[in-house]
């Protein structure tokens, strides 16, 4: 009968070996899960810049880092290319009030690398993290749910809740028709050529209809 000491030693050693085994397997699978083939020189340069400016001590990425500024894991998917480029050039202009990000006076090329990096990160398979909002949103109408799920409220506000960067939509229905809203969702630059709003053309048609109905109903 082995002593307790031997059992403890053996179990500890075994767990370390199992961990190493899983490490080998994880590293093998990371290539596909992170689309490693898309790690271009530009993306890697973006990661270097991200580290050089120590962005990670304010922002979380993959949920890790400082809790002072928003998580950027999905910021490319949420904000889109144009918005991010403009924001990185002039952060204060994009967020005129509230917590400020310093302006790093990035060159266009650097901005491009950072955006490419954020695009790559947004495609990493994170096992469904961060989760889509639910709870109260579940009880909302379909359109309101799409509004939250697409993070429209980071820029637009409704009834005092939401961002200040883009127009308040509390009474959008009394200003615009449903058709106008649909056109705006599909191609924001069709109404305003220098608009930084990302296009939501890729949304399923049903979701776009629900969102447009919801906004057109806000009188």
């Amino acid at each position: 009968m082995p002593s307790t000491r031997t059992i403890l030693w053996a179990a500890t050693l075994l767990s370390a070996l199992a961990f190493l085994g899983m490490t080998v397997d994880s590293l093998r699978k990371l290539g596909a899960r992170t689309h490693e083939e898309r790690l271009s020189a530009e993306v890697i340069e973006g990661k270097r810049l991200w580290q050089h400016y120590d962005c990670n001590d304010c922002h979380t990425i993959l949920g890790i880092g400082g809790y002072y500024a928003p998580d950027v894991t999905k910021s490319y998917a949420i904000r889109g290319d144009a918005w991010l480029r403009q924001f990185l050039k002039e952060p204060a202009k994009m967020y005129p009030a509230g917590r400020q990000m310093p302006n790093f006076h990035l060159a266009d090329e650097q901005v491009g690398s950072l955006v490419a990096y954020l695009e790559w990160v947004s495609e990493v398979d994170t096992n469904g993290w961060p989760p889509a909002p639910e709870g109260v949103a579940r009880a909302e109408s379909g359109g309101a749910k799409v509004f939250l799920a697409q993070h429209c409220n980071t820029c637009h506000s409704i009834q005092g809740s939401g961002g200040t960067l883009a127009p308040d939509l509390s009474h959008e229905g009394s200003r615009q028709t449903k058709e106008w809203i649909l056109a705006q969702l599909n191609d924001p630059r069709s109404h305003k050529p220098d608009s930084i709003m990302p296009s939501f053309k890729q949304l399923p048609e049903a979701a776009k209809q629900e969102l447009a109905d919801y906004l057109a109903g806000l009188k």
Partner: protein
Amino acid sequence: MRYKSQIVAREYFLAALLLFFLQVVFGILSSVKYVWDTDPLLAILPFNVARAIHINLLVFWLLLALMGATYYMVAEEIETEIYSVKLARLQLGILLASGVAAIVGYLFQWSFGLPFLEQPTVIKLAIVVGVLVFLANVGLTMFTNHQTLTRTTATLLGGMVMLAVMFLFGIPFMSNLSTQYYFWWWVIHLWVEGAWELIAASLVGWALIKLTGVPRQRIEGWVFAEVCLVLLTGIIGTGHHYYWIGTPHYWLWWGAIFSAAEPIPIMMMLVDTVRHMLKARRLATVNTLGLAWLGASAFVHFMGAGVWGFGQTLPQINRWTHGTQITASHGHFAFWGAYGMLAIALMYIILPEIGGHPTEKGTKLGFASFVTLNFSMIFLVMSLLIAGIVQVYLQRIMGMDFLEVQNQLRLWFEVRLVSGCIFLIGTVLLLWDLFRLARTLPAGERAPEPQPETVPAA
């Protein structure tokens, strides 16, 4: 103090205390930025720099304190002088210079840009040199006396070697962020829930043997079991950091099961420490304040690392709480309990011996700092916890924007700031008291050294 060379521990402690003070100051500067949107220091000390300095100072002061205590303990356990006091001082110089260079560098945007491991590569290499000097010095002290290592010293050596090896995984730049974070956790997690736990368990074991008079064999048996369980649960428990970083789905199972068991050894440490401490009541001379810090450390270690950690370790909960103020609450509570309080306990146990205050039991000032620090930390941790719960609800569940939610949390950030300021007062009291103890008393003022005691049979 039995060996002259043990005095080097005092230099490590004094350096550690100064860095601790600075850590608190930078913590307050960071928390001010959560309360007031307009940041007058945005151009010279933005949040990321203040936070980087805050968390780097944390690691530096704890390492220096634990290293100082190690020198003191090893000499006593091996019953010999430290191999080289000069090397110990050289090591302290290297580590302090690296720390100062890193912190000044952050102010000028010289950063590697990974949280906790922001030190640029050249500084990391200097830190490696400092740690190697330490390992060589401690190793030579242990092995030149031809004495069998006690189990506590062997555990301590194991922890220190593990600490050094794991740090290497934090040095290279990796193109793939997921791979980078995979190995980043080998430093962060396998330090605090592996190497540092080994170091802490052995130092607590040594302190208990010293202070309580409980036979060595009994305490060392516990230390061994605890250390094995820490590693058994903690190594695969790293998996609770691999839920959402791009790693395969099976980590949700492995991480959950093993990390859910992580509080067990911490619970054992608490029960063990309290049980042995109660025996010390029968002794004539008791270092009450040293024991209070030791016992409170075991308790807060269990609460902060065990309970707070368990509260969000299961993936079903963690997917909502990951990356919110709840993590900040857990981080503060666990680090303070497991390592901050332990480092202070060790100073209260060792400094009186160095300074010639062998009958030290704790002064009113010392107890006042104990109460101030711990109560303010509880308020700080609770305010972050409440902020985190509200944040999860509004941001993750209701889908409100991050910055809008931060505005809603302002009250709790204010409570945190006030708690931090009270904590600073406690820190000043602590420094005052420990500096008093560190001052060597002239021979005439010293009380006679007490004779070793053992617990009388029940």
